[in-house]
């Protein structure tokens, strides 16, 4: 159990930039070093965890924790993955609170803000590629973005509608269209 904690604490601590940056480290620790599961099992797990809601690394740690030690293991997995984040962020939040009015800190963050916007713009293109957008579904992201940006619709609502619509279309409508 302590090994489980240490492993996922390290995975949480050493992955900066989040999510998929963690995969090589998880693979090395879980498959090669600890041999908690086979490489095929882990690849299956990664595929499933990617299509699940929630935080990828936490999903993986809960699954592996549960596989090894049941419910308790799942909890240890989740806590150990979150703990490094939690400690780092709280330290920064408490320190930043004191220096927020400092001119240099303010200049620093004014310089960072446009960069952050650019760093969020780039995944749009990457995700568009992996979503295999074509002329039949390219309107979906356009409408979704418009509804959120201009109309102030909640992104959660958009996801709900998109999931249900995808299900209904795939199950009931697709074949009808194909026949006509």
């Amino acid at each position: 159990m302590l090994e489980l904690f240490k492993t996922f604490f390290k995975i949480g601590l050493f992955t900066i930039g989040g999510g998929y940056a963690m995969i090589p480290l998880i693979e090395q620790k879980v498959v090669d070093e600890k041999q908690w599961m086979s490489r095929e099992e882990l690849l299956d797990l990664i595929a499933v965890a990617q299509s699940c809601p929630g935080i990828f690394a936490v999903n993986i740690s809960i699954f592996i924790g549960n596989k090894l030690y049941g419910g308790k293991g799942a909890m240890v997995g989740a806590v150990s993955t979150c703990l490094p984040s939690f400690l780092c962020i709280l330290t920064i939040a408490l320190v930043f609170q004191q220096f927020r009015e400092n001119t240099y800190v303010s200049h620093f963050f004014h310089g960072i803000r446009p960069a952050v916007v650019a760093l969020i713009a780039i995944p749009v293109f990457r995700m568009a590629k992996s979503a295999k957008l074509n002329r039949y579904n390219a309107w979906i992201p356009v409408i979704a973005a418009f509804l959120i940006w201009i109309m102030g619709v909640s992104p959660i609502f958009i996801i709900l509608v998109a999931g249900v619509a995808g299900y209904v279309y795939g199950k009931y409508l697709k074949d009808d269209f194909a026949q006509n």
Partner: protein
Amino acid sequence: MITLLFQLFWTFFLIGLFGFGGGYAMISMIQGEVVEHHHWMTMGQFTDIVAVSQSTPGPIGINSATYVGYTAMVNAGYAPAWGVLGSLLSTFAVVLPSFALMLFISKFLMKHRSNPSVEHVFSGLRPAVVGLIAAATLLLMNSENFSSMSENPWRFCLSIMLFVFAFVAQKVYRLGAILIILLCGTAGIILGL
């Protein structure tokens, strides 16, 4: 205060439950709920939180949940200790749905994961996630993050240059996010943005 704590819990529970599409899609949801809907912080503050979340260890979703929980409490006028409670609650709430889900999956879904119904749902979700992140980007392009021509032309023009620099540096030259953030922050200090 109980109301705010409860709202934080509920908001992040929903985000954990419907947070498909990875960290950046989650950022879009947090932005929608926390800035646009609840007005717990300004867009500028939220952008700073995203910057810190990107450049510190750990998943972006966890980092931003922790930071938002703290900031929402402190912005509402409570002491930092309550901020810590807010961040604890937000982080707990955002991972809670994962438990139920992963336990369910370990029992059932691993066996038949190429289920056609799941594939149908994702044919709708994948394109929508692209729209979500695009909207997050557009919403972040405001005068609080870039200033404006009338308010501060110097900062506005430099902000646009930094935006282009960061975009090209990552997309074309594959520079890491942390390095880009540090470079732009340093430029901000030197140029007195």
